[in-house]
């Protein structure tokens, strides 16, 4: 009862303010233009257009502030004149040059942020290519880490795991939780998160779900659909626990990039990529040199034969799940450190991971690596020719085209034709 009264009172209060405000004070869309070092940018024109042929302008003052008065509650399109930005500064995402401002009701101003960063706007195509290539390689590394595990699981058990993306999200969310909520330093949270992911996402997942299903003789298509259900369950569980916002780690969030020739990379990117690359190399070496690794490949090739040769297939599969979860969770951490984590992170990347694995040839390890390289680099380089927002589309189209010509993927084994 009291909660109802409270709600009524507060809404009365606000509506009172609203009615009084709308009568007298003008309403603005406003903002402050600052560059990546938080220094104000002056002299840049911001324009707004709206319904009933409304248009208005404002020029940012010495402290970077600008405001445009609007006559009615509506949705306005606010744009910035990029040409007037000082050299070396540009919108961090040129595709977001027009931002929508939703003035819900008069009396309540709306603040708009135009993220400005060191511009690559005036960069030549060559410089852009170099940067995109670097970005593409890092993306390829993330995908490769995830793809290797996916491929190994497919190779040894035949399962196409649609819940694999959630392993990336798990790594990122655990890191966030351990650092932002529990309070550990990020460089401690990361290995702990990887270990926990390997345990939960690898060991426990196989032990309590997939191994019992294998014992039951569940068919592969049925298992595929089970993995879809699992993905939905886990993803909405993440949403339930962490909410829908993208979370940043408490440290290293706003690092500036180092200029290495034409390419700009943040130190955190360099460090995480190096670790990721090392993990990838160790994993591939493990697969080709170690006893367990070779056994994994044998099982992937021919489980019945491997079993009759004395290889304990179930132990191999368990190891493969743990390895896959370890690599995938670190891939998620790489993305989290650089861009933050949200509950859809894994799902967004999953399609790319599948594209990479399919492109390279399902079940082949080198294929997964090659496929990741092709997908990662082509996604970034394609932005030279197509709008950034469509870069995933480009990669998927490449996938379909290559499969047209080679249905088994680049390195895949040919099935029977006909």
């Amino acid at each position, binding site marked *: 009862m009291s909660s109802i009264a409270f709600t009524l009172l507060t809404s009365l209060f606000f509506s009172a303010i609203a009615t009084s405000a709308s009568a007298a004070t003008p309403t603005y869309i406003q903002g402050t233009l600052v560059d990546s070092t938080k220094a104000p940018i002056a002299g840049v024109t911001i324009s707004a257009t709206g319904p009933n042929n409304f248009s208005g302008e404002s020029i940012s003052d010495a402290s970077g502030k600008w405001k445009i008065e609007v006559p009615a509650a509506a949705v306005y399109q606010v744009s910035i004149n990029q040409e007037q930005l000082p050299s070396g500064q540009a919108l961090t995402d040129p595709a977001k040059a027009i931002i929508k401002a939703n003035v819900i009701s008069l009396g309540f101003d709306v603040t708009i942020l135009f993220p400005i960063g060191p511009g690559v706007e005036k960069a030549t195509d060559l410089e852009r290519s170099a940067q995109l290539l670097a970005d593409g390689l890092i993306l390829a590394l993330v995908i490769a880490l995830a793809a290797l595990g996916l491929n190994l699981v497919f190779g040894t058990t035949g399962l196409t795991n649609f819940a694999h993306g959630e392993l990336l999200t798990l790594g990122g969310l655990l890191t966030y939780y351990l650092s932002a909520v529990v309070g550990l330093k990020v460089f401690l949270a990361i290995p702990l998160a990887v270990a926990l992911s390997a345990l939960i996402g690898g060991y426990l997942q196989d032990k309590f779900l997939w191994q019992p299903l294998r014992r039951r003789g569940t*068919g592969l*298509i049925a298992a595929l659909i*089970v993995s879809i259900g699992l993905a*939905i369950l886990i993803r909405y569980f993440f949403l339930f626990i962490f909410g829908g916002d993208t979370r940043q780690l408490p440290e290293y969030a706003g690092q500036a990039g180092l200029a290495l020739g034409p390419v700009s990379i943040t130190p955190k990117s360099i460090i995480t990529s190096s670790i990721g690359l090392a993990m990838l190399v160790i994993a591939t070496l493990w697969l080709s040199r170690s006893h367990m690794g070779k056994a994994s490949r044998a099982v992937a090739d021919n489980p019945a034969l491997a079993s009759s040769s004395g290889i304990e297939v179930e132990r191999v599969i368990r190891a493969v799940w743990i390895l896959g979860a370890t690599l995938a969770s670190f891939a998620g951490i790489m993305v989290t450190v650089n861009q933050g984590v949200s509950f859809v992170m894994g799902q967004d990347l999953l*399609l790319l991971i599948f*594209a990479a694995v*399919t492109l390279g040839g399902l079940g082949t390890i080198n294929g997964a690596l090659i496929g990741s390289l092709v997908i990662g680099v082509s996604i970034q380089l394609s932005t030279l020719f197509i*709008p950034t927002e*469509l870069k995933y589309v480009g990669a998927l189209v490449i*996938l379909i085209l290559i499969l047209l010509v080679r249905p088994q993927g680049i390195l895949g084994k040919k099935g029977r034709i006909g």
Partner: protein
Amino acid sequence: MDFLFITQQSLSAAIGVNTIIFALAAIGLNMHFGYTGLLNFGQAGFLAVGAYSVAVSVVSFNVSLWVALLIGIVNSIILALLLGIPTLRLRADYLAIVTIAAGEIIRQVARSATFNKTLGGSDGITGKFGKEFFDLNPFTAGLDLPFLRFTPNDLWVVVVGWALVAVILFLMWLLVNSPWGRLLKAIREDEDAVRSLGKNVYLYKIQSLIAGGVIGSIGGFVYALSRQSVQPDNYGTALTFFAYTVLILGGAARVLAPIAGAVIFWFLLVFVEQMLRQAVSAGYIPEWLIGVNQVGQIRFMLVGLGLMMLMIFRPQGIFGDRKELALDARA
């Protein structure tokens, strides 16, 4: 706890617009997956094509609604051909991934800023493109019974929608029990055996893909017309996965099963949501466990869990025949 309200909402949902949309999506999937064994994970793309064809044709090109519907069907046939010709040679797992990719391409293009003049970008298209349909609405009042509640427009959509479903099911029943249907079922089980008997497997798979795709795009028509709006993010992979859930729940490879699956699915979805919402508001479930805003998420968690349980313990769904199971096969 207002059980009357909960029941009214749940029953209305069970035979309401969403059920019709998902039933149509699932009927199409039944043709693809239930009867032919095609792992089409891009069904959402067919609904998108149907919905956008209608919206864009009427709003941007001022075409009559009825012509727009025809355009939608033609477009879905084209999509089926575009999708089928390169992919039907692929193994099942490859087909799944490629069809998801195709569905995502459609969604990303639809929500892109590049094409947002015609396609509406991430906000989609909202407009009175269903006017000619709603002008025919004979219902002046809706339905306001204790157990069912529909606005006049929704009632019209529901009546026409179920009539459409009935016609489509009848045609499907004819097809499935014909020699053509027998071929599909054989292809589902073993393509090489069918080839060795002189049948062009490829052709039949394409026909199945077209048939199921057109049915899916009719689901898109209903989606667009019922809301008079098309939003690209409604046609993501989640739609396809829920359509599969509906199909499997009812029992794949049974003509009537998608209906049963859709009705039960939406009944449960709304029922659980309403129950949880009221339980949380009334305090039966503590706020620290589930907040009022989190009820929607719990719903979907239950969908995921439900799908898993279904596949593990009763893959034939409610009405399927275990012996005829399409889902046991080792790929």
